[in-house]
């Protein structure tokens, strides 16, 4: 399947990645090459095959809903790029 620069721009927006005008042709070309590689999958018949999401077909193991560790907000927030009084700071969202 071939992709257009517009397709790439649309996917980039979904992924929240900004691609500059000047980079777009090269990104599209290399993206297309990867898609060309994966298009090979269409040559194999998998009509009756159940998709595999875990190599051992394991099912999610649940644990008891119990507190195991204390909240450690200060430590966990120490890597936040902008914070104030225990809150993450973001640009103004509502005027």
């Amino acid at each position, binding site marked *: 399947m071939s992709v257009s620069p517009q*397709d*790439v721009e649309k*996917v*980039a927006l*979904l*992924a*929240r*990645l*900004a*691609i500059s005008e000047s980079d777009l042709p090269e*990104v599209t070309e*290399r*993206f297309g*090459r*990867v*898609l*060309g*590689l*994966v*298009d*090979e*999958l*269409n040559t*194999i018949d*998998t009509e009756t*095959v*159940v*998709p*595999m*999401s*875990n*190599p*051992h077909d*394991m099912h*999610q*193991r*649940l*644990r008891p809903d119990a507190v*195991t560790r204390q909240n*450690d907000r200060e*430590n*966990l927030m*120490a*890597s*936040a*790029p*902008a914070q104030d009084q225990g809150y*993450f700071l*973001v*640009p*103004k*969202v509502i005027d």
Partner: protein
Amino acid sequence: MTDSALLSGSVSSLRQQLRDRVVSSEEVTRACLERIEACNGALNAVITVCAEQAIDSARKADKAIARGNVASLTGIPVLHKDIFCTSGVRTTCGSRMLEQFVPAYDATVVSKMQAEGAVMLGKCNMDEFAMGSSNETSFFGVVKNPWDLNCVPGGSSGGSAAALAAGMAPLVTGTDTGGSIRQPASLCGVTGLKPTYGRVSRLGIIAFASSLDQAGPMARTAEDCAIALTAMSGIDAGDSTSADLPVPDFHAGLNHDVQGLRIGLPREYFNDDLEQNVRERVMAALSVLEQAGATLVDIELPHSHYAIATYYVIAPAEASANLARYDGVRFGYRCKEPVDLEDLYLRSRSEGFGEEVQRRILVGTYALSAGFYDAYFNKAQQVRRVITEDFTRAFDNVDMIAGPSAPGVAFQFGAKQQDPVAMYMEDVYTLAVNLAGLPGLSTPAGLINGMPVGLQLIGKPFDEQTILNAAHRLQTDTDWHMARPQLETVTP
């Protein structure tokens, strides 16, 4: 004891010397730190060195040894790939995105090895977010192969493999999502083990593709990998995909006996695409096992060809979901002066991630997007099962499978950088093992024009013991694993 003896010894011999008090952990640790200082300028294998912390841990280990209180890795220096979270120690994942990230907790692998007495020296360079096969995608610069400074060390655990080969540590950790332990082990002439999916907890390993990621050891011998694997393994309440199975003592279980062992050689790995000189090295290694009593059996893995396409849908799809968390808000890189929230997301991610990471996020987002999910992601998961069933059928008739670890020896910088697909072919022999969740090991099989080649051994699920035994036998009968690069050190 000379420094060079300290720096080339195996974990098992070093462990004995520590227990016999012939050498102290502090001496060994200082020798490793000096080696890092001498060689890292040339190799760029280590991003962060924790000298003070390491000396402190080594002294504690020496006190424990003096009390007779020894665990499996007491006093042994280790370097961790910079993908493992280390409490209070910067963990970059090779990315600008995490350049300043200091985790609040240890990965389970790190805490388990620490509990066994290991001394952490620092953190190794790697391809950004483990996406790459040459270590050229790291934000912290390329890692050089100690066998030839013009060549790549492989990736993504290239810093770990190069550091080990250069004598900076006797034991290093890596992760392997599509070959990231086995391919650099092959290119740097060391032994590397990717355990069965689920054997080792993924808690605290910065996620790339969660259904494929698995951590494992790299060392100078299969015996050392056996020691380290037991230390790293086990069920973890923090990783619901970690296997609820007993962890064998892989070291105690080691034996030399390969009599009657049936080794499958997939026709698809030994076809005309395989370079003649790689084939010769791989066959030379296999004939050693044959002479020791193993039987070589031709087998078929008919869907091998689809592994690359399958992997390059599943891995990017899972990566695009895992990497959605980097938003410039909670942790990681944040762009300067965002005008609004959308701008904050867009620029933080575009400036924080490198080219290969962005490409994989794009491919993964595409494969998961409305209208393409069935054609790509669902389809790839179906083919994943077909590939896995090939292995299951093959294992009805053989005890393990063997082939090359990589298509060739280490290549020069830039050789495959312009074409992502050419780079992806580096993992043509390793990817299917991750898709099927199997254990795989790379062990040195000699040199081609002075550069190392690896033999890959693939085991049944949770049967790491059989491939460790075969590698151990090979390393008993040959000295390929003893070959060391002649690295001229750059003294500070």
